[in-house]
């Protein structure tokens, strides 16, 4: 056991408290501001009011933005699941020339800054495809999101494939099952949970993405992050933003709860 003297222990506890304060005070300030009776966000709030909650919850622009965010994230996740899984199988099951390059290619969109991805795709959509008469519109944003979501699925699925026993698939084929049957009955059930986890991460990543969205969203279309950003330029309505932010903080408890349950189940085994 690590023996630490009293001074070191206290110092470590203080650092931990500072970090927690730094992380949670700002979130607390946002939540309190969503109940602000004043027009201007700040601290301390002058009084308590549900006015902004009432306005934000019935705001049609918020509903439209939320719907867009969900659609884009769902479709992008579906693409990412397909592409990420195919790539994971190719890289885990085969040794081939250029393997490292393919690996780099998948990781690149998340390693390079979002603004590079956003500017590059927007440049292609607007300077190259549009003059050719091809308008990508809404799909441009979905394609952009799917591109950086692939890596989330890929990482999860390939990690599981590495731990899987290949003998089971061979046994299935020996018993006469075709490739499709083997995949459906033997292979897929073994990596299903990693597949779902990767999909959830991809969805969360797409739902939260702002920089790539700024550059690829078609005119007049807002996702939830884009709506928040556009509102921040209008100080009068800024407290509605705090309501939406508070809802997002509360929603973030869901994935944390499930991942905690999953890891607790893992420990129990």
């Amino acid at each position: 056991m690590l023996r630490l003297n009293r001074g070191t222990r206290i110092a470590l506890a203080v650092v931990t408290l500072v970090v927690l304060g730094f992380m949670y005070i700002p979130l607390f300030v946002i939540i309190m501001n969503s109940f602000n009776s004043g027009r201007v966000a700040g601290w301390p709030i002058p009084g308590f009011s549900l006015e902004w909650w009432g306005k934000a919850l019935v705001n049609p622009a918020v509903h439209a933005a939320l719907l867009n965010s969900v659609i884009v994230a769902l479709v992008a996740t579906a693409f990412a699941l397909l592409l990420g899984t195919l790539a994971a199988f190719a890289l885990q099951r085969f040794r081939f020339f250029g393997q490292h390059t393919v690996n780099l290619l998948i990781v690149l969109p998340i390693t390079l800054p979002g603004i590079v991805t956003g500017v590059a795709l927007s440049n292609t959509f607007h300077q190259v495809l549009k003059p050719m008469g091809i308008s990508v519109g809404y799909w441009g944003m979905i394609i952009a999101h799917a591109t950086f979501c692939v890596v989330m699925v890929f990482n999860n699925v390939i990690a599981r494939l590495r731990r899987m026993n290949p003998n089971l698939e061979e046994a299935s084929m020996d018993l006469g099952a075709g490739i499709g049957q083997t995949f459906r009955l033997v292979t897929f059930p073994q990596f299903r949970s990693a597949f779902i986890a990767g999909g959830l991460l991809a969805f969360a990543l797409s739902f939260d993405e702002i920089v790539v969205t700024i550059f690829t969203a078609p005119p007049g279309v807002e996702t939830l992050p884009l709506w928040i950003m556009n509102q921040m330029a209008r100080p009068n309505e800024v407290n509605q933003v705090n309501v939406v932010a508070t809802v997002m903080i509360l929603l973030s408890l869901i994935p944390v709860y499930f991942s905690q349950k999953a890891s607790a189940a893992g420990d129990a085994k």
Partner: protein
Amino acid sequence: MNTQTVLERRPKPLSTALYRHPKGRLASLLTLPMTWLVGVYILSLALLLITAFWTTDPFTSRVKPGFTLENFQQLFSVPAYFATAMRTLGIALAVTVICAVFSVPLAVFMVKIAGPRLRALLAVLVTLPLWAGYLVKIIAMRLVWTENGFFNWSLSPVGVEGPGFGVVAVILTLVYLWFPYMAIPVYAAVSQIPANLFDASSDLGASGFRTIRTVVAPLLLPSLIAGSVFTFSLSLGDYIAAMYVGGSTQMIGSIIAQNINLNPPLAAAFSVVPIVLVVIYLAAVRRTGALNNL
């Protein structure tokens, strides 16, 4: 014999063909993802790089194909541009160092001092902000550091005034955004250190602090490097933080965003800067082998 007849009765041409031709199997797996990544992403990056050598007509703002190094020359010759690139690099390094400096004591506290229940709670608390949303955290930081915000309110009785919106607020905001990316791998690394190493170190007479410095720190280096790849690279490309808490502070991303419509070639040239910096950083840490942990 019976199995044989069943198999003969139900031929599986596709399965058989794919089984006989591993290259066909590989091709059928790789075609779709590679078409997407090369066709959409790499092609776009290449087009962006080509645009960086083109020119913009100053009167019509139209992009003209050609070849000029002028855009790259501007990066170095226009003092404001060069200063912005250096400032961004400095901010990214500062963010990385601050995240590392706070991650280690936090992880040691969680693993070695906190009991199992407190440790589980802390693990959740450190992970939670990861999900809270990027813009939510930026707004939160705005409310803390603004003139009539939380920081000035809580420390005004002791006469301390916050830094206001500027470089310091940008660094603090980026630390806030990316801290879990450093803290989680470091925590995982500390919890994997075998307990008997600590026993051995203390049997040999080392104090707790000396054990942390000579035993814990070297074992943490790979996870610190893995975390730093995220904190460094994500900070380099960010410009939303500078926009909302930076006052007049500009970062590389701000210049790219401002020029993307007015002067696309200059924006393209500028987006090469974070790519080069990230590649240099990855190459520098590659030798340590830490990248295999990503």
